[in-house]
């Protein structure tokens, strides 16, 4: 590699970091994304320059097919389907890294029938990281596909718990890493190396499936964050194989990003990562306090008219959107109601719980799509400090994230989970189809609170009804 091509790679790595920095503010985020894209373009051009004039047919075919599929996905995907798309892309990123490792192995060892161990052909470090790259990449690939199938409900969201799964998984990890190290460092015959590499690939693919099937649908935000991280680590492993500093840096950045998001999701759900990965949470209704819906005391319920009358007298309104809002596609209806309230002199803000959507930050994107200005989207801590000044809080399709049991019932399954303290508002309107429990499977005392009015209806219809009634007041 000539030095100036190496400097192009450095420029690329620097631009990736700058691009990421751009994402720390909404105003500079688009520019940051463009800088990262430019960094990628520079990396690809530098690589093509490094390769020089060769037969480019395979390269062109891959680039053209990949670009076409990528454009298709990017333009067609609905914002509600972003979790599915990210899951698929995690998988293709991991799969690509595993394929690069296999392709490299075939070309340096298997196809030329190179004598000696893989370590003697390409260096011990490259050989060993090559087996790691296959391992991480392949398990990310199948794990992501299972996550995708659970997210789009092709597979049931219920955890699938195999007997002895921890032992099986431990054996698969030990087997893939052990055999991987063995073929990289000790096996001297290239056809044997090929065989071992395929076995490692197979074990890793199986491991990916087994790691994700026991995890419940509600925990998918954690899983796709973690697989996001793995896809970066797989890319970094590829960087070790081909000794590319730029790949190592970019891969590490993605790895760090995924880990942070995983951590944020776990904190927001009051779970440890180990509990998410190995717990099989949601396999049966959570025991403990609270109970099914029939244990509710008297609940005050009303229709859109009564709700509109509350809004008529209110100045500050806080909307608390949950997953049910996205399911009912009620974002635009909510925006119309907010517009009307503002036209009548009130103010509207939105309190966003970190797990309000189906992935980190998902609710914010759904509301942005409905033209809600991002300044009106409050993080949990800000919102909780504000609820005491709020006249009416409207909870749309959220349940566990507004359950006071998290703070006042130590034995509750959600005890200690950070929640939105909507009960501090002067009145609360909860729009929900029924009193059925949320993912945690427990009762929500908010619903029978003195200041709470339940509106039992589909989120979209209820909001539209409130808008119509408010217009007439």
């Amino acid at each position: 590699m000539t030095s100036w091509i190496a400097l192009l790679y450095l420029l690329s790595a620097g631009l990736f970091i700058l691009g990421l920095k751009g994402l720390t503010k909404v105003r500079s985020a688009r520019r940051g994304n463009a800088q990262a894209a430019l960094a990628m373009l520079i990396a690809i051009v530098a690589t093509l320059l490094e390769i020089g004039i060769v037969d480019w047919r395979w390269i062109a075919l891959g680039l053209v097919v990949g670009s076409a599929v990528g454009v298709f996905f990017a333009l067609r995907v609905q914002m509600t389907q972003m979790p599915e798309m990210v899951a698929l892309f995690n998988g293709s990123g991991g799969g690509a890294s595993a394929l690069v490792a296999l392709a490299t192995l075939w070309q340096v060892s298997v196809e030329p029938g190179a004598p000696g161990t893989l370590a003697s052909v390409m260096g011990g470090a490259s050989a060993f990281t090559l087996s790691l790259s296959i391992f991480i990449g392949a398990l990310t690939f199948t794990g992501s596909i299972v996550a995708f199938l659970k997210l789009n409900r092709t597979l049931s969201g219920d955890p699938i718990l195999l007997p002895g799964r921890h032992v099986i998984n431990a054996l698969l990890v030990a087997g893939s890493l052990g055999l991987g190290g063995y073929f990289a460092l000790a096996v001297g015959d290239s056809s044997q190396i090929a065989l071992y590499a395929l076995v490692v690939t197979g074990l890793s693919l199986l491991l990916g499936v087994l790691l994700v099937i026991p995890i419940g649908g509600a925990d998918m935000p954690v899983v796709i964050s973690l697989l996001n991280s793995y896809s970066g680590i797989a890319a970094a492993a590829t960087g070790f194989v081909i000794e590319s500093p730029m790949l190592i840096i970019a891969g590490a950045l993605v790895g760090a990003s995924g880990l942070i998001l995983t951590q944020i999701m776990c904190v927001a759900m009051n779970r440890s990562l180990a509990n998410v990965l190995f717990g099989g949470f949601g396999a049966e209704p959570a025991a403990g306090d609270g109970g099914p819906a029939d244990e509710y005391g008297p609940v005050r319920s009303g229709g859109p008219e009564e709700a509109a009358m509350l809004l008529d007298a209110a100045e500050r309104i806080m909307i608390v959107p949950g997953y049910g809002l996205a399911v009912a596609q009620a974002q635009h209806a909510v925006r119309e109601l907010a517009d009307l309230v503002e036209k009548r002199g009130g103010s509207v803000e939105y309190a966003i719980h970190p797990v309000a959507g189906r992935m980190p930050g998902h609710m914010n994107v759904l509301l942005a799509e409905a033209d809600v200005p991002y300044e009106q989207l409050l993080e949990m801590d800000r919102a909780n400090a504000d609820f005491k000044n709020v006249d009416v809080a409207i909870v749309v399709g959220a349940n566990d994230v507004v359950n006071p049991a998290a703070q006042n019932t130590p034995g509750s399954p959600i005890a200690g989970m950070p929640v939105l303290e909507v009960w501090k508002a002067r009145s609360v309107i909860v729009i929900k189809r029924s009193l059925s429990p949320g993912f945690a499977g427990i009762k929500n005392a908010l619903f029978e609170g003195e200041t709470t009015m339940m509106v039992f209806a589909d989120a979209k219809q209820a909001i539209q009804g409130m808008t119509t009634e408010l217009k007439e007041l």
Partner: protein
Amino acid sequence: MGSLLVGVYLFVLAMFVGFEIITKIPPTLHTPLMSGANAVSGITVVGALIAAQGGSVTLGKILACLAIALATINVVGGFLVTDRMLKMFKRR
């Protein structure tokens, strides 16, 4: 210092930089961050390009071509969809 050790240094330092910057990214931008991370993880295309040079029809080349296609899906799709999302974030 061997190249493996240099690589480990870079990996660890880049992780630190990543942690420092990413903890400052507001929750509003976490979904674009993830799709952007998808795009960046497509950087593995660099390894795929190197493996795919040359016109021979061998299993190694076919695997490399497939790797380019998968990584390019991430790169192109990831950056495009991230931009599509970020365009929707508007001020009052």
